[in-house]
């Protein structure tokens, strides 16, 4: 039996600092996750730099000379952008195209970061650590996206945006005094649960992406150690490729959906105009 290669006992859950600028506070621990306040440049930052550099180089080469008869690379980039725009429009309609740059940036950055975790040297060399396998990256992106869509909600609705969480309209529903009191309390509780679940979204966004990428790295190492012959683990590389793409898409899509949910209004729409539209469509269809 050939000797099994070493499965590392401890996988790197986050990046390691390359050089440190100093401390900004005291370190503490939250449920086993260390929260450090040292300001340092980690190997996850360095790999993020590589991802950004690769994306920039590709985009600059593709858009250097924009022509009406596009070259091959420009054609591919145009196909990608158009495909993403159609996807965003199918999710949210025309108002969702306003958030297309954020969606596109998140999608491209996250998909390429996830794919970088499959590349051979990343994760084993001291200087390279896949950015999304480090929960700091994902948490930063999730917090920024959360703040952005809250600001967008406030911008669209004004202070009435808060009424979806602190909902006192239960006290003015039709009914007796007991019914009003009961509904009032129920609506307030539902609003608070909604507020908690909105804050919880940051955590699930982070952990979903981090868990998938880190779990994929662990699975690749363990599977290629169990299947002793080289090359048998290619199927898992393919699975990791697919999962990286899907998880990047899911993160960007969820952020887009949170934006759409924040700007939609919760009031009742008058049903009259919708009935009129469908009636007109049916008449046209019968006439044709």
């Amino acid at each position: 039996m050939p000797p099994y290669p070493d499965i590392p006992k401890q996988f790197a859950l986050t990046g390691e600092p390359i050089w440190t600028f100093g401390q900004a506070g005291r370190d503490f621990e939250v449920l086993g996750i260390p929260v450090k306040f040292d300001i340092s440049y980690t190997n996850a930052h360095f790999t993020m730099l590589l991802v950004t550099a690769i994306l920039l180089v590709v985009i600059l080469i593709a858009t250097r000379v924009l022509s009406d008869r596009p070259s091959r690379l420009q054609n591919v980039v145009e196909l990608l952008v158009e495909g993403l725009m159609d996807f965003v429009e199918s999710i949210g309609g025309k108002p969702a195209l306003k958030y297309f740059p954020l969606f596109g940036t998140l999608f491209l950055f996250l998909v390429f970061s996830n794919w970088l975790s499959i590349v051979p040297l990343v994760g084993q060399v001291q200087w390279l650590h896949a950015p999304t396998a480090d929960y700091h990256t994902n948490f930063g992106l999730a917090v920024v996206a959360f703040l952005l869509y809250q600001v967008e909600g406030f911008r669209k609705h004004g202070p009435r945006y808060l009424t979806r969480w602190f909902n006192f309209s239960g006290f003015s529903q039709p009914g007796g005094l007991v019914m009003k009191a009961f509904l009032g309390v129920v609506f307030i509780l539902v609003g608070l649960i909604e507020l908690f679940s909105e804050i919880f979204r940051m955590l699930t966004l982070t952990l979903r992406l981090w868990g998938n990428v880190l779990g994929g790295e662990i699975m690749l190492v363990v599977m290629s150690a169990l299947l002793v012959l080289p090359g048998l683990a290619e199927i898992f590389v393919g699975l990791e490729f697919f999962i990286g793409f899907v998880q990047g898409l899911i993160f960007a899509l969820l952020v887009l959906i949170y934006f759409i949910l924040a700007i939609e209004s919760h009031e009742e729409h008058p049903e009259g105009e919708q009935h009129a539209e469908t009636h007109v469509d049916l008449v046209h269809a019968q006439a044709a």
Partner: protein
Amino acid sequence: MNLAWLGAGLAIGLGAIGPGIGIGILTGLSSEAMGRNPDASATIRTNMIIGAALAEGLGILSFVLGILLSGKV
């Protein structure tokens, strides 16, 4: 007997039940929908992949807890 290891095992073991059932139901219903309406296959398949990734996210949350607990020894 180390309770952290027991916790890690229970976390991933019990945490895989929910997403497994959920994704099974999801795939079954979307396959039936694709059989009834083959023209809408692309839309249904896209929604199925998105739904599967969201359901799997919750299983990943418990996997993450298992990793953290097993690293504590």
